[in-house]
């Protein structure tokens, strides 16, 4: 029998291969002008959602805790990334190349979101099941609510922050408002690229897949499967739950930064409960714990609503129906039974003479 180890490896390489292949194909098609604007415009969001889905899968699929606030971490990453990218652009004398600003913004977004992941992890990880889920939801809502009242500006005197209004920043000459309450981060220079997204996916896969298939990953899965048993063999459940939670948050943060820097504006409202749920849909549809599934589901479900534009006003209705049908078909037991029945029919409906033949 093939060892599990090598099966993991093949599986992982398949995942990497799929991503790299898709990237190369897209590049070639774009170079030949064969990709519609609509699809080109979606490339960065697709990569963002893939990273979101893969990172959420770490919490939901691998750690086995339902998080309803993953968009909150994306939000933290998006705003810290957007703010730092804009500040870098405004303040650093020797202008950094765009890709470097983007990279720094993603790193900062990741770190800040990871830190928030840690903070929220402290209360969250004392809870279980749906109580935990509700706290993640609460966190997402708090972030959304708080960002709406923060104003940040930059002028010759440096950074200014206010919780009242843009006017209260009292910016001097040439001052620039970076974050403007409900208007969100405005005046972002778009620097996100498909390639950056591709690299972020690779990094995410590297971190997540390697983590899952290592000692720490095993411990995380052990905690998911049976907390009491995990503790009985000397595994600190707190430590490994936190590890998964923070990693997941940090990756979502990096994705958030990439997302924010793909548009000239980003608002807190974007990262609400619905976005958290959307990412959860990717994870569940792609099967919990299945990384490749997350990637495919995120891609398909991001593109799908755009493909459905032909349906006009019934578009979202059609989307809902497709979503339900896909879930039903994917989990249909009768189909599975039918399959088994056919298989046995083929094997055993022949003359009664059959003895223990299989090895």
């Amino acid at each position, binding site marked *: 029998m093939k060892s599990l180890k090598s099966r993991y490896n093949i599986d992982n390489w398949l995942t990497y291969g799929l991503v790299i292949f898709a990237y190369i194909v897209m590049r070639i098609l774009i170079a030949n002008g064969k990709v519609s604007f609509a699809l080109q415009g979606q490339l960065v969001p697709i990569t963002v959602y893939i990273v979101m889905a893969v990172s959420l899968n770490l919490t939901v699929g691998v750690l086995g805790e339902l998080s309803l606030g993953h968009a909150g971490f994306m939000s933290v990453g998006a705003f810290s990334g957007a703010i730092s990218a804009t500040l870098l652009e405004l303040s650093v004398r020797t202008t950094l190349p765009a890709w470097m600003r983007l990279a720094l913004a993603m790193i900062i977004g990741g770190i800040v979101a990871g830190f928030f992941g840690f903070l929220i992890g402290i209360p969250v990880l004392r809870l279980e099941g749906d109580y935990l889920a509700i706290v993640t939801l*609460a966190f997402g809502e708090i972030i*959304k609510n708080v960002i709406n009242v923060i104003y940040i500006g930059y002028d010759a005197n440096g950074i200014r922050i206010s919780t009242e209004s843009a006017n209260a920043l009292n910016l001097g000459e040439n001052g620039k408002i970076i974050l403007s309450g409900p208007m969100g981060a405005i005046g972002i220079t778009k620097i996100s690229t498909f390639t950056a997204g591709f690299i972020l996916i690779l990094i995410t896969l590297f971190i997540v897949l390697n983590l899952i298939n290592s000692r720490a990953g095993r411990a995380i899965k052990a905690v998911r499967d049976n907390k009491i048993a995990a503790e009985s063999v000397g595994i600190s459940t707190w430590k490994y739950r936190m590890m998964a939670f923070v990693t997941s948050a940090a990756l979502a943060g990096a994705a958030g930064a990439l997302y924010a820097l793909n548009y000239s504006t980003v608002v807190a409202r974007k990262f609400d409960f619905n976005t958290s749920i959307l990412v959860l849909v990717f994870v569940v549809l792609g099967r919990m714990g299945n990384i490749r599934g997350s990637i495919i589901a995120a891609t398909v479900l991001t593109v799908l609503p755009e493909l459905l534009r032909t349906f006009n006003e*019934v578009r*979202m*209705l059609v989307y*809902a129906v497709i979503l339900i049908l896909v879930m039903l078909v994917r*989990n*249909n037991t009768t189909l599975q039974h039918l399959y088994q029945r056919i298989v046995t029919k083929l094997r055993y409906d022949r003359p009664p003479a059959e003895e223990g033949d299989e090895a």
Partner: protein
Amino acid sequence: MTFLSYLISGISLGSIYAIIALGYTMVYGIAKMLNFAHGDVIMVGGYMSFMATTNFGWPPLLSVLFAMGVCTVLGILIEQLAYKPLRSAPSLAVLITAIGVSYFLQNAALLIWSPNPKSFTSVVLFDSVRLFDGKLIISGTTIVTIVACIIIIVALNTIVNKTKVGKAMRAVSEDKDVAQLMGISVNKTISITFAIGSALAAVAGVLLCSAYPILMPTTGAMPGIKAFTAAVFGGIGSIPGAFLGGILLGVIEILGKAYISTQLSDAIVFAVLIIILLVKPTGLLGKKVLVKV
């Protein structure tokens, strides 16, 4: 006195959350699924009552019964078509389907009733109670809502704890396989659960719209989430807990607005929620599930 009027406002708002949370908890406690479409069934209930009173000219009480009837059928239908085939699938799969149903209902409502908001005429006929020369006003809707909540709590508790169907519900919620081995029809039990839950959603929808008389396809979404929060806050599966959770959520929201900040009212509500859960990790009235080691 000001505090008292804030408190009453909080209870008014909370009673609405509570009545939604009761339906939520009902389905949630038994079918063990987060029925994210619950908020949208509420919305449908609102529209039904609206149509009955405004378009057909029916009396308010009849409109409520009509809404309950339609929602019950709708609930059973949703359950049969979308959730039943997933009986043996992981619970998150059902949650996603529920989200699909929620999208479906919202968008169907958008097409049927257009996105334009409608102004709802309260079904509560009697006036607000005014105390201390009108300094304290308790609206008729609030009184009706709280009374309805209490009736529902008593009724649900009786059903769940005293009747055969209630026992079946509890058995199903614990272990579907073994429940079947006891001769319980899991499908029938869950259908009944959904029927009751949806009827409650209709009542909640009508009262929600009576208290805050505006009706749109998205009307149920946010109250649905808040009520879900309230249900968890009160302790999952605990019927009085859902009520208490709802009331408290409303009170915290109003007091937070009044004494801290209107801008951050949601942040305050959720922060308080987190703190309380830290102290009481299984919600206000939730029992810790006993695990035998």
